[in-house]
């Protein structure tokens, strides 16, 4: 800046360096009350100090989003450069001139599901992601993972967090076992071979359509976004949300956009509309090892709306703290939210 402005700020660069030095020292594991007092004093010196500090603190907190890329890899090892070039989080972008993309494209073979597997296996070291063998091919995702698996018949399966499916395509039938989690199916039309999804003892049959099946223990939820599927004996059309528990089946008819929103995890979001907090938290908990819970039924009943990144639960916790004046008590692997 020109001279006449210089007394307003000591210069962005110098301040930023000081702020980040404080942040890193606070994070060093050797932080004392005396050190905190010195930091407080520094922050209190001027608002310029405080905003510079908040900015880098927000950046470092936001960088936790990188955890989405680390899901499933073994702690203590660093994935190679560009290992996430084909991650499902990155849709191809015309503007991405980044070196990541170039490198990844060179390395990744043509078949996209294999690209995904390759990227994940690189990150995992040796752990398996895709097993070929009986009965059928097995695919799974770690906590926080989302992956698209194209099948030979032209269908696609999108796996949500912590999901496991087995796929068997034969001349009579296309057969998928959902062993755990949630998957969205885009079924290629083939009247000669029905597409059958089994979730526990429930069967969902489609010919050419789009729908998702989620399994939580023995509970099964089916959401149809295109065409018709048969859930056990009931025909479900687009916009249907069906929930089955033991022998009971509840079918709700929703406008299509609402049904689509339930499946917004495919785009990397959770979408809530006047959803009870307890329900929203159990959605988050499917995506994170860290579990967030409501302390009591009143807290769990608070209704929330919005779009959130499922692996970014810290941000969600901060938002509900601010928005509803909730208190959060956090330990190593759980956070409990309460009113006061």
């Amino acid at each position, binding site marked *: *800046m020109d001279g*006449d*402005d210089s007394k*307003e*700020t000591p210069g*962005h*660069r110098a*301040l*930023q*360096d000081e702020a*980040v*030095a404080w*942040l*890193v020292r606070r*994070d*060093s*594991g050797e932080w004392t009350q005396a050190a905190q007092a010195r930091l*407080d004093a520094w922050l209190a010196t*001027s*608002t*310029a100090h*405080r*905003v*510079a500090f*908040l*900015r*880098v*603190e*927000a*950046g*470092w*907190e*936001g*960088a*936790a*989003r*990188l955890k*989405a*890329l*680390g899901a499933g890899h073994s*702690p*203590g090892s*660093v*994935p190679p450069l*560009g290992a*996430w070039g084909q991650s499902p*989080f*990155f849709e191809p*972008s015309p503007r*991405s001139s*980044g*070196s*990541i993309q170039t490198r990844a494209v060179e390395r990744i073979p043509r078949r996209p599901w294999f690209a995904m597997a390759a990227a994940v296996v690189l990150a995992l070291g040796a752990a398996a992601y895709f097993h070929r063998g009986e009965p059928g091919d097995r695919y799974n995702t770690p906590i926080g993972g989302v992956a698209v698996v194209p099948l030979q018949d032209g269908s696609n399966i999108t796996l949500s967090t912590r999901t496991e499916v087995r796929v068997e395509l034969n001349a009579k039938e296309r057969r998928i076992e959902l062993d755990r989690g949630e998957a969205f199916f885009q079924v290629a039309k083939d009247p000669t071979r029905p597409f059958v999804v089994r979730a526990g003892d429930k069967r969902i049959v489609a010919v050419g359509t789009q729908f998702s099946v989620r399994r939580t223990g023995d509970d099964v939820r089916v959401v149809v976004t295109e065409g018709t599927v048969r859930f056990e004996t009931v025909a479900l059309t687009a916009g249907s949300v069906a929930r089955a528990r033991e022998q009971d089946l509840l079918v709700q008819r929703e406008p299509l956009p609402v049904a689509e929103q339930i499946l917004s995890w495919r785009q*990397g*979001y959770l979408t809530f509309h006047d959803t009870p907090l307890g329900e929203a938290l159990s959605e988050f908990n499917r995506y994170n090892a860290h579990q967030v819970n409501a302390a009591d039924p009143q807290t769990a009943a608070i209704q929330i709306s919005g779009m959130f990144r499922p692996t*970014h639960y810290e941000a969600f916790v*901060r*938002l509900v*703290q*601010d928005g509803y004046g909730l208190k959060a008590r956090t330990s190593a692997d759980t956070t409990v939210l309460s009113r006061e």
Partner: protein
Amino acid sequence: MADSNESLDTWFKREIVAHEGALERYLLRAWPNPHDVLDLRQDIYVRVYEAAAKARPYAPKSFLFTTARHLLADRLRRKRIVSIDAVGDPDALNVLVEDLSPEHRTAAHQELRHLAEALDALPPQCRNAVWLRRVDEIPQKEVARLLGVTPKRVEKHLRKGILRLTAALFGSQDPRAVPRLETQHEEHDEGEDGHGRG
């Protein structure tokens, strides 16, 4: 910072810093000298924070850009050298807030991509330190042991990494701005590397 500032601080990070990219793009359009942008941004943050400490604005983003406009106007009045002709784009001073950043609502995966690119652009040891500390949440001392460097060195890596990732996360993605600012970063960072404190 368990004082009453905590919620203001949280608010500031979420409602103000989050718009940093849009703010920088606005400043680049509205102010003739791109070298001033980071300092202007800092001064705008100060004004917004101090105003919000008295009364939290109802519409934070509009308030941020109104504050920016007033600050630029003040600067223009004080610096008589700068004629109004020198202003990069006078219309930009009156542009609607929502028009500034149609792309601001970047999808999560785009933010993640910016972060991943910034991560991969870090020097190897710096990248390792950032990953182990941020993603794996391994304590700094243990990171130092894993990488076979001193804790001081890890601090240095993290300082650099945090600044880069912060810029990637919030910063202007304007191609006119980035190379210039990056160059400054480089000079600065390399200088520090040369006289490493580690």
